[in-house]
């Protein structure tokens, strides 16, 4: 068998059955969201297919479309399962785009600060720290208040709220790697600064960033749902999971629990799975837990 750092990592990861199950679940959910139009019985945004008579029907109801609404329908007669999968698609899109951009920005800021050092480092990290102490949700409010609502505003808000976490982590990891002998060895050859940063420091600083990324994608999705729930996130034309839950809120008290609960469960299953995967990687990376 080939013995590489990656294969070692996978062998250790496989020992935690819960984490493996969670990773599979994440994979399946992402896959379903990707191929949503192929697996959903209905396109929930196609107004032509919505029949008001089907609205707010409980799970198992067979509507005008002659198929079973396994999870019931929402207030506009949408098949809830389809709406959830499409909602997941939007939520995932927002989470991955925002976290991806935040990761790149954060990694560049963090690594540059750690490598350049001096005043640039202290200034950049001070700004990052200040921003970290400012809660993401407030930042999102400010941006929503200034720029109004919409998809791009929301992504901007999420990036703003998250890049600082990546920058902090990248800086910590890169600064720790910078101290290690293998970097000094590379400098002593000598190799160019670019090569040292890109070929030596960055690959070694990447694993903690991946952990943060899993957590941040989860928290971006949760934050997006929260903002949409509060009415300052996505516009109603693009119903993310948060919007679905918000729409169902008013029916919760009258016993039509499914409209709010199932989208919520979908959201939670996905976020829990992502966090479980992130936790396992984090534990594996923690040198203080090994002997």
């Amino acid at each position, binding site marked *: 068998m080939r*013995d*590489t*750092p990656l294969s*070692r990592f996978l062998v250790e990861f496989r020992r935690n059955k819960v984490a493996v199950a969670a990773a599979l679940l994440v994979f399946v959910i992402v896959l379903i969201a990707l191929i949503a139009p192929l697996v959903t019985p209905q396109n929930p945004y196609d107004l032509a297919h919505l029949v008001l008579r089907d609205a707010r029907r409980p799970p198992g109801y067979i509507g005008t479309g002659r198929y079973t609404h396994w999870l019931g329908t929402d207030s506009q007669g949408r098949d809830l399962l389809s709406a959830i999968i499409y909602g997941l698609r939007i939520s995932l899109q927002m989470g991955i785009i925002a976290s991806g951009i935040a990761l790149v920005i954060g990694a560049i800021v963090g690594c540059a600060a750690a490598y350049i050092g*001096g*005043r640039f480092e*202290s200034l950049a990290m001070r700004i990052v720290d200040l921003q970290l102490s400012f809660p993401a949700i407030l930042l999102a409010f400010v941006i929503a208040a200034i720029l109004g609502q919409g998809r791009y505003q929301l992504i901007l808000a999420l990036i703003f709220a998250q890049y600082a976490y990546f920058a902090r982590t990248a800086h910590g990891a890169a600064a720790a790697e910078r101290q*290690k*002998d*293998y970097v*000094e*060895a*590379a*400098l*002593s*050859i*000598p*190799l*160019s600064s670019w*090569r040292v940063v890109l*070929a*030596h420091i960055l*690959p*070694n600083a990447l694993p903690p960033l991946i952990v943060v990324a899993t957590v941040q994608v989860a928290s971006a999705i949760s934050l997006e749902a929260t903002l949409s729930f509060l009415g300052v996130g996505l516009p109603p034309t693009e119903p993310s999971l948060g919007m679905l839950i918000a729409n169902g809120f008013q029916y919760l008290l009258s016993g039509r629990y499914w409209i709010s609960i199932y989208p919520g469960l979908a959201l939670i299953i996905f976020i829990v799975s992502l966090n479980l995967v992130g936790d396992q990687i984090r534990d594996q990376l923690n040198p203080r837990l090994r*002997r």
Partner: protein
Amino acid sequence: MTDIVTRSAAPLLEVTDLRTWFPSGRGEVKAVDGVSFSIAPGEVLGLVGESGSGKSITGFSIIGLIDDPGRIVEGSIKLEGRELVGLPSHDLRAIRGKTISMVFQDPMMTLNPVLSIGTQIKLALEAHETIDAADARQRAITAVAQVRIAEPERKVDFFPHQFSGGMRQRVAIAIALLHRPKLIICDEPTTALDVSIQAEILAEMKELVSELGTALIWISHDLAIVSSIADRVAVMKSGNIVEIGPALGVLTRPQHEYTRALLDALPSRAKPGQLLLRGSGIADAPPPPRKSATANLPALGSPYLVIDNAVKRFEKPAGLFRNLAIKSGLSQPLTVVQAVAGVSLTVRRGEVLGLVGESGSGKSTLGRMAAGIIVPTSGTIRLNGQPVMSTGRAPKKITTRVQTIFQDPFSSLNGRMRIGDIITEGPLAHRLVNRAEAPDYVRQWLAAVGLDPTFANRFPHQFSGGQRQRIAIARALAMQPDVIVCDEPVASLDVSIQAQIINLLIRLRAELDLSLLFISHDLSVVRHLCDRVAIMYQGLIVEEGLAAAIYDNPQHDYTARLLAAVPVLPQGTETTAAE
């Protein structure tokens, strides 16, 4: 094997057929596998072995603190006739610190950094008796005074970070002695300390145990230290005691071949420059031919790497407001650390220059400047007349003729690169070889440092410390340098591995006409390898000269003190000298 019970008195501790195993993914790791020995009251037993021999686990088994998932699977540990194996945890706790106590290796890690010394001593007192605050403080002061810490009344209120490593270890010893235990287990208590501190602690410990009549188990990898303190010595290998007996006997007339091999591996027992371990572990493959120009190199013996008045200061830049605060006297000025305070040193072509000093002497900083890794604050470093680093705003290393070998082979290799890439990265970047030649070049170098040439596709984690150090040597030599800065290259290796790496360096140096700047704290290794020696103390070179002259007739006080602090083995008979 001779297990002689030397004293007629009833043993204080009797260990019989002790087996401590650690279940792992692939069966049990038998860390301790059938160890038997006994200690009489007041006796000092040295437990010697290389890493992984099970010597520390034996100590932790006795005090009942084995890490999960390890456990004692068999055997008995009797303290004054009372069986400790299988004792309920609260009974064991009543013994720990009271009858048996322990001192650990790294004093930087053992004390709690956020509690004052007095509080930590008070907690240890309260573990076994009820005591009021005033009494506890008084006892803490006495305990601190007992381990020769000046101004004990003031020092009990100090926090660990206000003490040096040696002082912290004294505090740990004070805590271990609090309840006048009958047995103290010391697990490599001086390994993390400088030689001079080590000598002080050894002397004090000897005095304290004989004064208090405490029995002592001194666990160490260093035969010389053990010989200077122990009445009896037990040599451990892979979970077993291979030889046990009176210290002088074991160290001068070793019965077991492993003990003999350990002694043979010590550079202090061999003639300087001689191959250790009877020359075993030497690879035969010659290094690949060098391609860089050798035409304008100076003759062997003429000045080559010249360090002229090098100074290195480390300081933190102050922010605008901090500067104002300092100027107006509201804040303390920032401390500037002067690591190297103006050093001039010349490495001649083809020689090995030893740079000796204790921690904080600035020897590593000087080495890093010589290697072109860090920029000197002032002064110049030239190789054959050419500067090692460029000048200007962002100085860069501009020569490839000086390469470096680092202390810790676990951190000096990038774990995400294959061995082949690690070795050829530099030569490819500097066009010493092209892509087509690279695989062959790697194979030649792997063979030259005594490794299997097929290892090129593996990753560092698949190798032991000694193998990694060989890879690091191959990486440095593949750049075809003339000078190698060796920063403690054998300090973190076991003696037998250390001997092999020393042999490798001796051989390669001769074959390649290398000049070495050999930085070490280990005086016997330096004596063995180096032609000339420079002694560094507080950022300055205090003495420099031929190795033999300095060792036999030190001129500077500091050198003399340093040499006197080195523990010496009793002069033996059957060693390499007998060849």
